């Protein structure tokens, strides 16, 4: 009986190894290889971003080594290090945070692998560590949201704003808040009375908004750092017997499908676009980098702002 058990075991091990051997190696002809270290799949926005990159790579005939860091910087660094070990042609990554990349990027530089950043920039003294950065500007998104509010909110008296922040410490949360505050400062009537994190999720957004509504009857405006929290908050506002979009003006960021649906129902006033469709642009740049072209340090993606009124027209065009 024991013997048979041991045999079974060795069969399993041998099977594992054999299946590994049998797996075809994909090292055929020399294709351009891009190693891309993604942040994770923490939001709808991010999955749309990933899909865009994968599809674009396939269309451009670039072999993509994709790695998911599950929102951890150390995982991203590990992935970059493994890309270096695999000797890929270009490394791309969407930094989880802006800081702390110098060491591993120097290793990439030493291995002569060019690096492209997407989505957000990094803090470094040595600009030569990366070729270029393409992506959105969270601070700018915050500014746009604030500007829209200043331009469009016409009520008298003080404006009490509550803010649903993203995950504490995350770059979009910090930068969107920064941009928003910058602009709002211009008018002393606009005041952020309450601010709490909703972790970028609908459930938390709803929960926090519920508490806000109980604690404070005078809320005029809600600024949510992403659409998901705004959608959760809308539900809380409705439950409290108020009309979202009218009694409380709602400004949010991302412009995902759900936001458009809410806008079409008249429940969300405006959403600032944060475009995830970086794939095709990224692949172009990869090819240019490999061809040795000079590129600007920063390439911004085109991003719009969608007030309620334009929602119905824009909705069919939304891919994410």
């Amino acid at each position, binding site marked *: 009986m024991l013997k048979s058990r041991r045999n079974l075991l060795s069969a399993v091990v041998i099977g594992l190894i054999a299946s590994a051997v049998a797996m075809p190696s994909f090292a055929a002809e020399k294709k351009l290889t891009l190693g891309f270290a993604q942040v994770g799949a923490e939001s709808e926005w991010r999955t749309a971003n990933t899909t865009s990159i994968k599809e674009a790579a396939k269309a451009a005939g670039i072999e993509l080594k994709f790695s*998911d860091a599950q929102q951890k910087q150390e995982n991203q*660094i590990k992935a970059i290090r*493994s890309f270096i*070990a695999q*000797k890929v042609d270009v490394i791309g990554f969407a930094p989880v945070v802006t800081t702390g990349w110098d060491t591993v990027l120097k290793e990439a530089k030493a291995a002569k692998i060019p690096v492209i950043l997407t989505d957000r920039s990094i803090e470094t003294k040595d600009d030569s560590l990366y070729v270029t950065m393409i992506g959105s500007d969270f601070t700018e998104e915050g500014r746009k949201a604030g500007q829209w509010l200043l331009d469009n909110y016409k009520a008298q008296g003080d404006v009490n704003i509550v803010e649903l922040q993203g*995950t504490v*410490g995350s770059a979009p949360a910090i930068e969107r808040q920064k941009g928003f505050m910058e602009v709002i400062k211009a008018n002393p009537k606009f005041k952020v009375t309450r601010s709490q994190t909703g972790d970028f999720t609908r459930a938390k957004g709803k929960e926090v908004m519920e508490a806000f509504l109980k604690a404070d009857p005078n809320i005029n405006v809600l600024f949510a750092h992403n659409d998901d929290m705004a959608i959760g908050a809308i539900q809380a506002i409705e439950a409290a017997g108020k009309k979202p979009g009218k009694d409380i003006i709602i400004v949010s960021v991302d412009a995902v499908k759900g936001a458009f649906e809410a806008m079409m129902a008249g429940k969300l006033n405006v959403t600032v676009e944060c475009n995830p469709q970086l794939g095709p642009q990224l692949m172009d740049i990869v090819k240019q980098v490999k061809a040795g072209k000079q590129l600007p340090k920063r390439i911004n993606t085109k991003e719009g702002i969608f007030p309620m009124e334009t929602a119905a027209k824009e909705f069919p065009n939304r891919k994410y």
Partner: protein
Amino acid sequence: MSLTRHLNPRTLPLIITTTLFVALFGFGAISYDAFLSPQVFLNLLIDNGFLLVVAIGMTFVIISGGIDLSVGSIVALTTMVSASLVQHHHWSIWVILPLVLLMGCAFGLLHGVLIQVFRLQAFIVTLGGMFLARGLCYVISIDSISITDPTYTALSEYRLALGEETFISLSGIIALVTLAIAIFIAHYTKFGRTVYAIGGNERSALLMGLPVARTKIMVYVLSGFCSALGGILVTLYMLSGYGLHALGMELDAIAAAVIGGTLLTGGVGNVIGTLIGVLILGVIQSLIAFDGSLSSWWTRIAIGLLLFLFCLLQRIIERSGLGRKAKSTTA
């Protein structure tokens, strides 16, 4: 005929685990180009050095029969305090290092006292510590702080060449030194053996006249120290302080210890096993990175499946191996 019969039952799980690690690495070597290189192996140490250090502290805690959920947060707090002091207050690294180590110990002391003196459950106390340390990070700054201090940068970028295109980082070296010291503590000091005794049977340890209370508190201090040291390595690894660093590292550390053969019930396990546990977690990640074709969710599922296969194989081999051993010794 059977090798296992002559083995100490304590070293058997370790041998099984090591063999399975080699099998996993072999699997990678066969499947992926460039996997079978010394640098890929050394990267396991470079990229997981801090986890190894943290997991070593965790191993002691688990062997003593406790658990420490605060380690990941203390790592983050260490990076935050270091970065803040060096960047905003321009302190010298040589002041900061002992300071943060002391801070880690203080956290451990707090946990130990609450657990031992007030008889609170370790799980809950260290969960509180986890909230506290992570919360303090945000109090310092919610944003990440980049470190540009030349000493930190130099230490971070230091590479000991071990051959052509083969190198190891400072944190890898520190991790290995910590490992050596931990092995010494676990096996050659009274403290280490007392930890094992307490985990085996706390009442007996008390009746044998061992300093149970002191040792139990010290174990948490040690874990706090290792977390802070791990935090220093993370600081060097990322050259930044950030409240979201090392999120969920406590589970990785527990997993590493447990995979390495440490029993959560206490008394059984060893530090070398933890090294293997860390390497296994690392090699699973490397396999997935080298594969590079998995989507985000398949990455998670694949990690889960590999973990599952590994633990299952480990259990099956142990059962057959230890089963035989037990039979020959029960009288």
